[in-house]
Every structure is written in C-alpha cells, then in structure tokens.
C-alpha cells in the first residue's frame, strides 16, 4: 500500500463509464443513429471539399470526373489523382487510427486522459528517427517510415516487458505511470541525440508531421494494415466497455483482463505506430476525439470506437485542408492546425463539464 496517496488520486478521476452516473450513459437509438448519419455526411462532405480546394482551384465536375472517370491525359485529373486523393485518403484513415488508438487506451487504462503519446509510442518513434538522422542521414521516406514504426514498437515493448516483470502484471494506474515515464525518457533521449548531433530542427520538422509526402505507394502499405486493424478490433469493443467499468466488474463478468489488455495494446501499437511513422507525431487527436465521441453517443465502446474513427477522420481531413489553404503555397504543419482547431473545442468541453469528467 505504498502508493496509497497516488492510487487514490487516480481512481478518483471518475471514468465516464462508471455506472453511478446514468444521466449521460443512455442515448436513444434514434439519436445515436442520426449522430452517426450526420458524422458520415460531414466526413464525405469534408473529403469532397478537401479534394476540390487547394492551391489550384478545381470545379466540382472536374473533381467528380477525376475520381470516377479518371483520364491521365488531363492535368487537373492528375493533380486530383496523384496529389489530393492520396492525401485526403491518408488523412481519413490516419485520423481514424489515431482516434481509435486513443479510445482504446482510455478504455483499457480507465484513464480519460490517456492517449497514444502516453504509452511512449510517439516518443519511441521520434527516438529511432532521431538516431537514424544522426547515423544514417538522408534515408528515403520509406525507410524512415519503417524505422519509426520499429521505434513505436520499441516504446510499447518496454511497457510489455515491464508488465511481465511486475508481480501480478501491471494494473491500469501503473500502466499509465510506466507509459508516462517511458515517454519522458525516450523524448529526452531524442533531445539529447538531436542536440549532440546538431539536428534539433530537422527532428522538429519531422515531428511536426504532415500529409505532404504521402503518395499512392505509401498509401498502399498503410491503408490495408490500418483498415484491417480497425475492423478486427471492433469485436473487442464490448470487452473494453466492461473493462472501463472497473477491473473487479470485468473479472466478475468473466473477462480475461490480461488478454484483453494485450490485444488492445497490440492494436494501439499498430494503429498509432503506423500513423506516426507515416505523418509524424500528430498529438491531441487520440485524446480529444474519444471525449467528444463519448459526449455524443454515450459510454458504450461499441459506439465510441466507430464514432471516434469518423470524428478523427473529419478532424484530420479538415486540419490538413486548413494547413494547405491557410497560407499558400506554404504549408502549415498539420499538428499545429489540429491544435488550433482542437484546443479551443476541448477547452470548451472541459469548461462545460459540470461534473468531474
């Protein structure tokens, strides 16, 4: 009981899924259905807008024709097909991946503030990228992608190993603490490497991320992986819901905590690791989107996860669009754009929340 003060503190952060707060937990099926339909509509609309708007203005007919009757001889068709379309698709799938990874993290750690940054995933990726900048400068994009994914895996493996070394495994609180510490350590080590080899700003550019470098050949790699993971974890949602009610409840209902946690963590690594490796570290999506989803559809992760994927996609499509059109021909880093959109909205939510979140 050495952590008495500590553990009390965390368990007091009431998870939105706790059963004694029913006011927000039940939404009628009609409301939920309508919410989903409007989210899908908004996503499609913003994708369409993102494809048509840009440094070169294009008419709606051109966009429509370029997607459905692609003619490689026409320049506008080429712009749409080679530049805009892969960008927008990447924003959709990566937005969904970041948001779902965040939702899973929040569910299994029972910590509403958990996001993929906390598990050391982003930090691990950054660390390995820093090493590669220092020792193998000028690697091609594909290699950096691969290395940064390995870094994400490394960050998470550290947590897995800690979990195995700890007697009785890591509980949610210690998982979170361990993640925060590993993230702090890896971030600091990247800073050290960057300072020692004088490449701080290169790293900052990579970290700031962006969809500018995405091409079809990258998309062909990441799209199937992310899509498959997103579909495969849907059956896990019920267990995550039950886990978010508390470990005792989940055990009583026959949930194998260790396995659920392991599978969910593996899914988080794939989703966040692949995304970070493709576009750099875009923070905040995984934290804020699950909160908003919870507001909209209640506390059931069977609804939260799909809703998060829709909202995450919308946020990143719009943020990428904003980063392109705010100051053309220069692009603002998309992570900055996400923060400009997400922070005020999140602050609004946090302020409006009367109860403890």
């Amino acid at each position, binding site marked *: 009981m050495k952590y008495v*003060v500590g553990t009390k*503190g965390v368990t007091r952060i009431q998870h939105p899924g706790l059963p004694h707060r029913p006011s927000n937990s039940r939404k009628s099926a009609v409301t939920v259905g309508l919410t989903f339909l409007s989210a899908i509509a908004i996503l499609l609309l913003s994708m369409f807008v993102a494809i048509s708007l840009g440094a070169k203005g294009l008419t709606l007919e051109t966009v429509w024709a370029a997607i459905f009757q692609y003619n490689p001889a026409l320049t506008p068709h080429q712009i749409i097909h080679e530049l805009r379309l892969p960008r927008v698709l990447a924003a959709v799938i990566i937005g969904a991946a970041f948001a779902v990874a965040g939702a899973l993290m929040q569910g299994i750690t029972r910590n509403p503030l958990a996001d993929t940054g906390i598990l050391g995933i982003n930090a691990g990726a950054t660390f390995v990228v820093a090493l590669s900048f220092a020792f193998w400068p000028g690697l091609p994009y594909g290699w950096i992608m691969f290395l940064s994914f390995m870094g994400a895996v490394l960050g998470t493996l550290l947590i897995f190993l800690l979990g195995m070394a700890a007697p009785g495994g890591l509980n949610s609180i210690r998982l979170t603490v361990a993640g925060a510490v590993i993230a702090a350590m890896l971030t600091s080590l990247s800073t050290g490497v960057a300072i020692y080899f004088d490449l701080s700003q290169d790293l900052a550019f990579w970290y700031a991320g962006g969809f500018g470098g995405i091409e079809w050949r990258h998309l062909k790699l990441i799209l199937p992986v992310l899509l498959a993971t997103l579909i495969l974890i849907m059956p896990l949602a019920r267990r995550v819901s039950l886990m978010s009610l508390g470990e005792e409840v989940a055990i009583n209902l026959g949930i194998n905590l260790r396995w659920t946690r392991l599978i969910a963590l593996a899914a988080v690594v794939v989703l966040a690791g692949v995304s970070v490796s493709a576009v750099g570290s875009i923070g905040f999506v995984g934290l804020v989107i699950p909160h908003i989803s919870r507001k909209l559809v209640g506390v059931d992760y069977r609804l939260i996860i799909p809703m998060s994927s829709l909202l995450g996609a919308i946020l990143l499509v719009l943020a990428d669009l904003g980063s392109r059109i705010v100051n053309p021909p220069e692009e603002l880093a998309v*992570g900055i754009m996400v923060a400009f959109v997400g922070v005020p909205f999140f602050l609004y939510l946090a302020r409006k929340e009367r109860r403890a979140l």
Partner: protein
Amino acid sequence: MNFNTPSRGKRSIIVSITLLCIAIAVIVISLNTGTIRLSPVAVLQTLLGNGSSDDQIVLFDYRLPRILVTVLAGAGLGIAGAALQGITRNPLADPGILGLHAGAAFGLMVFVSLSFTMDGSVALLIPLFAFAGSVAAALIIMLLSYDRHNGVSPIKLILVGIAVAAGFHALTLYLSLRLDEDTYSFAARWLAGSVWGRDWIHVQALLPWIVLCISYIWSRSKTLDAFNLGDAAATSIGTPVRSQRIILLLCAVALSAVSVSMAGGIGFIGLAAPHLARRLVGPMHRHLIPAAGLIGMVILVTADTIGRTIFQPNAIPAGVVVAAIGAPYFLYLLVRSK
C-alpha cells in the same frame, strides 16, 4: 495504516539527514570536477578565501553560481511536483503535464524569434521571458478551470492543463520551424536543461522565490494532507479547501516557473522526486516535502555534473541525463513494488 506513529517522524528525520549528506557530497564532487580539476582541499581553501586567483575565478565565477542554480532549481522542481500532486490528488501531475514547461518554452521561443542577441546583459532577459511564458500558461489554465461554484477542481485543472499545453506546443512549434538552425539549437539546449553560463545574478533572482514558496508550501503540509481525503472530508475537518487550493497552486506554479526559467524544462523530477520521497518517508506532506526537495536537488546536481564531465567536450544538458538515468531506476521501483 497508522501514519502518525513516532517512528515515521524519526524515520523521516533520518532519511532527510541522509539525503542532505548525499546532496552535500554530490555538490562537493561537482565543485571538484570540470575541465579544470580542483582538489577538495583547493575548493575548501578557495571557499575560505585562501585559494589561488585562478581557482577563485573558476570556482566563484563559473562553477559555484551554476551549481547553486541547479541546487535551487532541483529542489524547486521536486517540491513543486509534490505540491501539485497533493493539490490535484493525481500522482501523475507534474509541472510539465500542467503545461508550465510548454509556457516557458513558448516564452523562450518568443524571445529568440524577436531575434535579440544572445550575449551581454540581454541574456538576462531569457529567464524573464521563460518565466512570463509559464506564468501566462498558469494564468490561462487557472482562469479556464475556475468555476464559480466549486473553485478550481483538480480534474478540470489537469484537463485544461493538457489542452493549454498542446496549444502552447503548437505555437512553439510554429515559431521554431521558422528559426535559423543555430538559434533553434540554442533554444533547444536551454529547454533541455543546459545550465551553462548561469551567473550570480541568476542565483540572486532565484533564491528569494525558492525560499519563500518552499517555506509557505511546507507550512501548509497539513492542508495538503487534508486534500488527500477528498474535498468533502477536508472541508468537514475545517480546511478552507477553495482558497487554500488556489494559494497553494499559485505557490507551486511560481516555484516551478522560476525553476524552469533558470534551468530549463526538466521533466521527470517533478514526477519522480515526490514518488521516491513517498516511498522513503510515507505520504505525510510534513515529511514528504523536504525529502522531495532534497531528492530533486540530488538528481539535478548529479545529472548536471555527469552531463558536463562525461560527455566532454560536448556537454549533454542535465534534463537528458536526468531522464536517461532516472527513468530506468524509477521504472525498476515501479515494477518491484507490490
């Protein structure tokens, strides 16, 4: 568990004295080492005013002010972390998580973006900008998390803190991507806790804040203990929860803001020092606060000494060393404890 047994008090005194001895030993070692080595005898003689003029210059103009800054900032960060964890009832709260480091970083980036020169007396403005940045962050966080009915609720504080930190990070990133490489790497070094080139004037600026804030926070140990019971229970045993929370919060913020502005945004100390202290002396803040301060001091001075001696001629900022050594040890403790 009975927290009030006399043995706990005795234990905390023993622990504190041991930590103090370790701190002094580390400081002495740190005074001895560097590009120019001074033997302990030479250090002692110089301190007493009998050293050679070279030794005096090395010790008084370079090494001593730097070490004093790390000593004060280390203690400040450790105690600010302990206070924040007590106030927010969250063992993960530290000045970094609450967005104070992000504010300081932003302040520094504003300073270098305004392209002042780095040399001469203008350099004294750097801590000022960093301090202004973290105070601005703190004010925004407190304004946004203040509620007319409940005062500042801990969970809202953390949520708002994370959001504000993200906002400041974005602004910092925006500014930093436009800087030239040299300026950026200077700023990155400062933020990673490189305490190179600190002067007596920095010590003078730091000392009163640290002493005042630490003694106030320590004098309010009972209040911090009461917070741990929860707001309702704390109020019922006669703690003015709302007003005390705000004053203590301001103190913790000031403490970490001055520390960060002098020593850089060193994460981890604010998180780990209170944890380690809790393991050593238990959860009573009367014992916890001095222990956390001493642990923070030992960690930062050790890290700075290692960073500037082992990696010569290129120094590694203290913040990096703190994380590289402190984190594995902290994880080991975390895993081993039941």
